[in-house]
């Protein structure tokens, strides 16, 4: 591997260096907005988000209109064949709309990342940020300690509670974190060393992808991290009017859970995301659904989830009453009786078989031995006898004889039995 690697490097260059080099121009573009954005007022900075959202919507407006048109057409038509075609067409248009919105996201990436970085800077540099209060600010002021109203203004503090720990914002994205953010936006795995601030890196693509309104998920390995990170990063997004929630704060199937999925950015643990998907597929009315179509997810500790956890399925099960299906108790006395009867009978047969074999009559002895085997293969005395020299071979030979021509002679062996135990394939283990 290492040899191949070094040969590869000689030909195509070091992949990681190449990857990073490819992303560098984008980093330069992000930074080119910096001096311009520094001059913006807080309100002007916040308006950027509205502008981005509008740009994205505009980019596929034609398609949205067409889909609405088709949906109306389908409602009025009773022609099944035509409707089927329309549905196919709608699905295709939706895919196109997604592609267009992705293209737009790529276009606005530098500016959008610069907005997040500038926001982080302002929270790090100021204890409070005063802005003209929006509807969202008013709502948040009632829910969160870090937003308060002063007349027509809203005041944002730069210190808040992150799952039981008071934090004061002090982080601004480094260049390498911008690179990490780009990789995540592009749907790649970003390998970042411990302590390089993965939580902060994720804010960049989460913000960008949440602008479509289709949801951006951050998936963690445990609920402590989900709750901590969502609370820790929330104000950065909320400042821009994006909603943030964590599914682990709410009970399954609850309105709160649904609201968390309807948020622009949703944090949560991997198992809960998976179970919600399964529960949704057990729902009886559309109102019970909590998840939206799966748009964008960043999986934290992705190696642990996709490699280490591989193939242990999530399962939703329920005990079902037996009802009248099984008659175990009813049949049990009869079964117990015939097993007992067969055992008694075969004890005698085995004794006879032993006697015959000892006398050298291997034909008759083998025949009886096979009968015991087909009647009670796990009988202790029988198994013990099998361990004696030559007995196993005799049984094998006899069985082979009776198995010829598709068990032609076997009924003779079985004729004396109440039930027959046929061990297929791995006969060797039973001996």
């Amino acid at each position: 591997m290492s040899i191949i690697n070094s040969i590869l490097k000689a030909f195509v260059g070091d992949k990681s260096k190449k990857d990073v080099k490819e992303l560098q121009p984008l980093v330069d573009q992000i930074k080119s907005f910096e001096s311009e954005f520094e001059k913006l007022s807080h309100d002007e900075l916040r308006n950027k988000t509205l502008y981005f959202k509008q740009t994205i919507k505009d980019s596929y407006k034609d398609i949205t209109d067409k889909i609405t048109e088709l949906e109306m057409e389908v409602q009025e038509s009773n022609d099944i064949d035509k409707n089927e075609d329309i549905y196919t067409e709608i699905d295709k248009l939706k895919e196109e709309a997604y592609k267009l919105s992705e293209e737009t996201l790529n276009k606005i990436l530098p500016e959008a990342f610069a907005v997040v970085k500038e926001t982080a800077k302002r929270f790090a540099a100021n204890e409070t940020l005063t802005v003209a209060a929006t509807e969202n600010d008013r709502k948040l002021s009632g829910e969160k300690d870090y937003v308060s109203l002063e007349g027509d203004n809203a005041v944002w503090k730069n210190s808040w509670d992150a799952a039981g720990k008071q934090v004061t914002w002090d982080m601004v994205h480094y260049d390498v974190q911008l690179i990490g953010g780009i990789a995540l936006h592009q749907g790649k795995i970003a390998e970042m060393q411990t302590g390089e601030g993965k939580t902060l890196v994720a804010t960049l693509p989460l913000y960008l992808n949440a602008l479509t309104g289709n949801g951006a998920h951050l998936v963690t390995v445990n609920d402590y991290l989900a709750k901590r990170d969502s609370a820790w990063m929330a104000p950065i997004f909320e400042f821009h009017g994006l909603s943030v929630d964590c599914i682990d704060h709410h009970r399954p199937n609850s309105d709160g859970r649904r609201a968390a999925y309807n948020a622009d950015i949703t944090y949560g643990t991997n198992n809960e995301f998976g179970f919600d998907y399964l529960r949704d597929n057990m729902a009886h009315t559309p109102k019970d659904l909590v998840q939206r179509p799966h748009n964008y997810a960043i999986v934290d500790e992705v190696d642990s989830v996709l490699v280490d956890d591989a193939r242990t399925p999530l399962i939703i099960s329920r005990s079902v009453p037996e009802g009248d299906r099984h008659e175990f108790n009813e049949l049990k006395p009869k079964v117990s009786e015939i097993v007992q009867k067969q055992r008694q009978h075969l004890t005698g047969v085995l004794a006879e078989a032993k006697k015959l074999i000892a006398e050298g009559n291997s034909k008759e002895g083998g025949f009886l031995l096979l009968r015991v085997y087909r009647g009670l293969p796990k009988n202790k005395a029988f198994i013990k006898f099998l361990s004696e020299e030559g007995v196993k071979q005799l049984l094998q030979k006899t069985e082979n004889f009776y198995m010829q021509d598709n068990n032609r002679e076997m009924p003779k062996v079985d004729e004396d039995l109440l039930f027959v135990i046929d061990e297929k394939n791995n006969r060797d283990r039973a001996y």
Partner: protein
Amino acid sequence: MKKTTEIELTDKGVNYISGEQNRDFFVMPDIGAEIAKIEQQNPEIEEEAELKEELFKDFTVKSERIHTMSQLLKAYTLFEKDVEYVVIDNKVMIVDEQTGRIMDGRRYSDGLHQAIEAKENVKIEALTQTFATVTLQNYFRMYSKLAGMTGTAITEAGEFWEIYKLDVVEIPTNRPIARDDRNDLIYKTKREKYNAIIDEVTKLSQAGRPVLIGTTSVEISELLSKLLSVRKVPHNVLNAKLHKKEADVVADAGNPGVVTIATNMAGRGTDIKLTPDVKKAGGLAIIGTERHDSRRVDRQLRGRSGRQGDPGSSQFYVSLEDNLMRLFGSDRVAKMMDKMGLEEGEVIQHSMMTKSIERAREKVEENNFGVRKRLLEYDDVMNAQREVVYKRRRHALQGERLKVDIANMVYDTCEVIVEGNKAANDYKNFEFELIKYFSMTSPVSEEEFGKLSAQEITGRVYKAGYDHYKEKMERNAATALPVIKKVYEDNANNFERIVVPFTDGVKTLNVVTNLQEAYESDGKQLVTDFEKNISLAIIDDSWKTHLRKMDELKQSVQLAVHEQKDPLLIYKFEAFELFKAMIEKVNKEIVSFLFKGELPSGNPNDIREARNVPRKKENIQTSKEEIPNSDELAARNRAAGQTQRQRPAVTETIVREQPKIGRNEKVTIKNVMSGESKTLKYKQAEPLISKGDWVLIQD
């Protein structure tokens, strides 16, 4: 073993059990003969359908009974208490054949567990039935765009790409890494290794540096803890998965002189922050007590030191008695050590050694990847099926596209009926099935049936069938309307949603609908909800049964190995057959209920209010099998590797008898199935041979 064992009553046994009075108790009806008998009587076509239904029902009851009997016989003759299972607290628990451990929570499938419970006179537990299942891998694959973050992915980059099409980008660190990663120290025995570790840890701690000791198991953590206690070195031990508390201990692990012992996976996602004093003293020291099978895990441990350009060091200790070394490449290392004339207690630190360990691990990783990939292939089969069923379910739930699905179901059912009967040239049965599923007489005459192609007949039947269906639904709406009107206009009833029972003559299914919408749409909403509810109920029920069958299939195909066949291939084939049969059954059942379903009476008293019952939660369990961490997995793999070693592998002997072949040497191989021969370079032939379809021919 239990899977392939079949137990059957002999005629003598049947007589014995049935006794005199009830001769037919266990005798399966001979379907073919019975059908002929019914037809001979030449009854009315409706009556004939009824008689045949009766026959099928008898058949089902008897086959269930015989199955129960057979499971009971197995329980009594093949399963012994305290060998295959134990009874604890009135519960039957399975004992693992290989390890002898009790497998808590597992149950034998297909009624066997219940049979053993009956035998042991304990309560017969209800069956737990899987309602829905998915692996996280397949869940995340559904996202339009998926990204991931981690400290360690690059060693698994090939796997991420091949399976998930995820590219791994190594993001450079903000500041250069100042951590000193030393070459491995290699000792002959574990004892020498642990002694050296304790010496080093004591020294480091006294120098004011925090030390993090990474182990591969709880036992080693405890052993080292004991040894450190003897030396009176204070320390913390992290084993369990106490998320929050764990984070606190890890956060404390950066203070001067603090020693923390942790299994490798402990404390992910939390940072070890250093004080200025610690940085001056040289930062966090990482001590690895063993090389892990996976390089990724070691990198993770290493990565805990040297964050954000902090100083730090990492050192791994290895002994030739370690599992990894014993299994891979230790011969060479041991020889090398002998050549160097190593004495007891002496240590070797050489880049060549480190590399040779590295190579051993690459081998292990490749192997593990292969195992995972194969398991994922099993999972893929199920995943594809789930996607189809869930899409249909979603259409039914949303209602919008259900009409198209129903039309397709009608068409597919027509096709199945036509093709089946056309092939058998059985017009009579064709007529019978049309009545059974569509409640209508044939739109084609017997003569036409013989002349026209299957496709033409299907088209005609479909057209007639679907028209009939539309009429039927209009009629249903019209019948229901006066009743709905009465309920709606009765001021005493302030209902929002109502339950309307529908019946196909055999079973009754309740349809929930919004009263006002039903009223305002002239009953059309009721029909839509009827279609929705019926489709959902039948899809869900069939899917549950299918999940159980797939589970059984997965277990039973493993036996194909004994027949030198590839279980995966058989699994794929059988799974497809099962799925096809299930979809066919779903189509038929939905179609048949929709065509036959009627309001039992025009009595408004039959309609009740649908109260907003909270979703039925009784007994719903969510579960995920406890995931062994990669240490445990590694231990398991090692155990498996050892048992494999003990077993003389036949193929291995054959390989050894052959002279070594160069990778570019030309060889001739022959296909065992077709007998075709090919001559090509060995490196090209190797993958073909390993698949088992081709064998090497000696010139």
